[in-house]
């Protein structure tokens, strides 16, 4: 008998590990399955020179289902609203819903991007449309209906070429402060070079409804292609970062405005420690990748991406905004195409940190693509999916993941469109149909396999700012704490609202703490992994949420 067991054991066993060369990336590679056409998502962003930049959209739950629907810019083509009809874990499916907005056509033409934000706090997400011509505010209603709200909210549209947007709730305000970024003044002498329009800040005026009748210029403007309110030093008062396109400015640079309640905006300057940086700024992403308590920023450009970290030697404890570029150290420069053999510089647009493989590490997505036909820059320029590694670096996985297509990509929406806990990806492409990638799971020899655990968190608090824009979410698993900040802005003309996704790796439980926008920390909320949860400031427990289909 013993002999039989010994024989069977000998047969069923493989040798002890003999040491293999590590693979790169070392963790899971998500399989991103392109299914835009099958999903019914038919949208092309296109148009002449004014539409070389822009090309974004917004993801938002507009029908109360919890599934993110999308509004996509079309440039010279009409912007479209696609209502999400997917079922949980299934193939992606969208149905176009005519906007049906009673408004002069020029208010809805020439849309370059969009951001969702509940401006009036009625529980329906509103839409901010970036347009060549100005900014349009759409008030959200039930069942994915929208109405023009510029007049109702005393907003004159901030005429000009709008290319970026961000919003924040300043302390004590009922409604958000809106920052609007402009591009080239096409009518100025010498245009387009050296003719960047000023940007603007709209603070809500007192009253029971949004009133944006007062414009505060943010001058000088340097052709802002991305803006983001960010609490860079954890002061509790977010500043406004502006990423500018050096293609058209003269004497410009990257900017950051100090926005303090009741005070005029003030640019950070050399005396504050702000250093000159000039890039073809296309998109800002914020993420905490090294758990030092301060956010890092990915700035896309033509050529290398900047990955900025508050300088530990010169920034003190957030006293001075002195940043060090760590893109090279972290393997995140993404300066030339990683596939296709074209060695000319890349052109980066939308940037966003997210955890695509649920391993608990932030990954970095960068949409790539030639402006149009710029000969000095790569023609085949696939978007990057740089997966965060445990050694702090990023490893490119665009080819393996399946997103290395030949597109002129611009904006993007990273969201869980089928509510399966895995982040999907929608990329707006210039002159080509938008790409929609469903995350099927981790690459394996056969079918994709399940990835790490996850949690998706939605915040709620009483008005003002019912969705807690500006809140910081800290999720603790063991000795690790992962953070996300609820923001409106950044990326390239694209933003999403709703559940905030975090990968949890092997943790099956997590503890959530929220630093609400007013600076107060919540007590810890305990949640199990692989759940959608709502953290309501007025409730002592996180509530679980389940989709209806």
């Amino acid at each position: 008998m013993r002999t039989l067991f010994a024989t069977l054991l000998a047969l069923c066993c493989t040798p002890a590990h003999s040491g293999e060369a590590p693979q790169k990336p070392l963790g899971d590679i998500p399989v991103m399955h392109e299914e835009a056409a099958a999903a019914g998502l038919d949208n092309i962003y296109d148009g002449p020179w004014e539409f070389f930049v822009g090309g974004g959209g917004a993801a938002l739950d507009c029908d109360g289902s919890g599934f993110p629907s999308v509004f996509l810019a079309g440039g010279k083509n009409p912007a479209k609203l696609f209502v999400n009809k997917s079922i949980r874990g299934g193939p992606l499916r969208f149905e176009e819903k005519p906007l049906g907005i009673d408004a002069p056509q020029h208010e809805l033409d020439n849309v370059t991007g969009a951001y969702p934000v509940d401006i009036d706090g009625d529980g329906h997400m509103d839409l901010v449309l970036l347009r060549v011509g100005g900014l349009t505010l759409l008030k959200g209603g039930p069942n994915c209906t929208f109405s023009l709200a510029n007049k109702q909210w005393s907003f004159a549209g901030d005429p000009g070429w709008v290319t970026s947007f961000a919003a924040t709730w300043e302390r004590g305000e009922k409604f958000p402060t809106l920052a609007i970024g402009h591009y080239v003044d096409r009518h100025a002498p010498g245009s387009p070079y050296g003719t960047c329009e000023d940007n603007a800040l709209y603070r809500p005026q007192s009253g029971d409804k949004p009133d944006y009748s007062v414009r505060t210029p943010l001058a000088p403007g340097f052709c802002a292609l991305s803006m983001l309110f960010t609490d860079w030093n954890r002061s509790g008062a977010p500043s406004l970062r502006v990423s500018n396109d050096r293609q058209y400015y003269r004497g410009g640079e990257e900017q950051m405005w100090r926005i303090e309640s009741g005070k005029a905006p003030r640019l950070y300057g050399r005396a504050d420690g702000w250093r000159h940086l000039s890039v073809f700024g296309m998109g800002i992403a914020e993420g905490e990748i090294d758990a030092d308590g301060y956010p890092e920023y990915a700035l896309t450009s033509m050529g290398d991406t900047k990955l900025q970290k508050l300088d530990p030697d010169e920034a003190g404890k957030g006293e001075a905004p002195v940043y060090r570029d760590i893109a090279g150290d972290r393997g995140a420069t993404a300066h030339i195409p990683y596939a296709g053999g074209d060695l000319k510089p890349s052109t980066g647009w939308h940037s966003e940190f997210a955890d695509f493989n649920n391993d608990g590490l932030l990954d970095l997505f960068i949409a790539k693509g030639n402006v149009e036909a710029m000969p000095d820059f790569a023609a085949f320029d696939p978007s990057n999916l740089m997966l965060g590694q445990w050694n702090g670096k990023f490893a490119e996985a665009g080819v393996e993941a399946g997103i290395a297509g030949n597109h002129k990509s611009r904006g993007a929406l990273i969201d869980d469109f089928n509510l399966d806990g895995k982040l999907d990806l929608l990329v707006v492409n210039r002159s080509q149909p938008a790409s929609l990638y469903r995350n099927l799971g981790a690459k394996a020899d056969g079918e994709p396999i399940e990835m790490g655990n996850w949690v998706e968190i939605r915040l709620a608090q009483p008005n003002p700012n019912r969705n807690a824009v500006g809140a910081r979410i800290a999720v603790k698993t063991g000795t690790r704490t992962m953070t996300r900040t609820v923001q409106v802005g950044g990326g390239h003309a694209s933003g999403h609202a709703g559940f905030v996704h975090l990968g949890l790796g092997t943790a099956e439980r997590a503890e959530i703490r929220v630093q609400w926008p007013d600076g107060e920390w919540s007590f810890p909320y305990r949640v199990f992994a692989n759940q959608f949860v709502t953290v309501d400031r007025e409730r002592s427990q996180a509530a679980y949420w389940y989709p209806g289909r």
Partner: protein
Amino acid sequence: MKMAMMVAGIAIVAIAAMSQVRSASWDERVFSSHVDFAAVAGAGAAAIPALIARGRELFKAKFTLADGAGRPKATQAIVPTKRKHGVNPAFTRTSGPDAISCAGCHNDPVTGGAGDFVANVFVSEGFESAEFDTTDPTFSSERHTMALMGAGLVELLAREMTADLRAERDEGVKRAWSRGADVAIDLVTKGVRFGQMVAHPDGMLDLDRIDGVDADLTVRPFSRKGVFTSLRQFTINAMNVHHGMEAVERFGVRWTGTHDFAESGVPDAVTQGDISALVAFQATLPPPIEKTDLPADWRAAASAGARTFGELGCASCHIKELPLRSMLFTDPAPYDMAGTLRASETDRAIRIDLAKLPFAARLRRNDKGEWLIPLFSDLRRHLIVDAQVNSLGNELQAQRFVERDVFLTPRLWGVGSTAPYGHRGDFRALGEIIAAHGGEARFARDAYLGADETVRGNVIAYLRSLQLEAP
């Protein structure tokens, strides 16, 4: 036919074993080779006896540094966690590694059984205060070694209960969405109530009134608190905590970026197949028996005690039998999360039909054909202390969201063989542990103590007849 299948199975397995490294016959190492999960799963039933035998070997094996033991740079935590400073000593009685072998503790009265008080373990999260050299309960919760007999049946019961509870939840959620109104959902499975939840028409769930189970409705049947979903999850944790042997599926390159997270010098120390062998051994351990070969006075008292046990209210939690629909044990298990092998991560599962094992013949079946598993538990958590009776409330730490004075109803099968009693093992006799029941069990405890000596004796006689048997 049977022989042909077996040969076919062996042939499939053999492909993966071609390059096996042979070690000297006196080698102290446990792992001169590893079990190949895919090969075993592919071989089907033919490979199961060898898998179980290998599991038994591993359960009794004494892991060496050459096997990767000791986790010098990692803590005992359930998720991969590095030590902040220094290296672990070879053994530390408190924070571990604290054993060279599974059977070092699980050996009373047979391998896979319980342990004496000296084999207690000191449970901590292993995060901020991973290293401690004290038995002070502010650092850890001291726990008595539990017997593993019948563990496969227990896991199967828990799986079915989880499936039932989740189906009830999902149906309620669907109705609330479609009706546009609140729906109250009674959470009941196998006659055990787990409270109620309310599904709101916007998809939100009100969980305030669920009871005795985690919010994700996973019935976790293992550990004193009921915090482990499966034998597989328990085994991976225990191998790390007690032996410093780190399984690839939790601590491997996929989740840590390295093949040797613990810096033991041995990459990928424990494979999926190795864990499966340990799981197979534990899952097929025969359940305890109700001994009838007893002296006449004991037999008579036990017979009376069986009735009294129910009459006093003990059986309200220590339910004698729970019905089991299927005896097919699959590995991986259906409700494990990342870090414990999941079904989608394998081409096929290892399947062990417990109905074909000898012990199945002595299990009763009901008129539905369900197997009646005599575990004496509801697999539910209860508050076990109150203001007056609180000696079981001696822990100071919650464990994985379970409050300090809430415990899973212990399975009483085999209780006659597993003294001492209680989660810390600090009650020497059955009467003492019964008297320590407070909280939700207070009424039954009071009834027991209020009964006359003969009645109490009958209960003890009955409980003492529930014994472990050598596998």
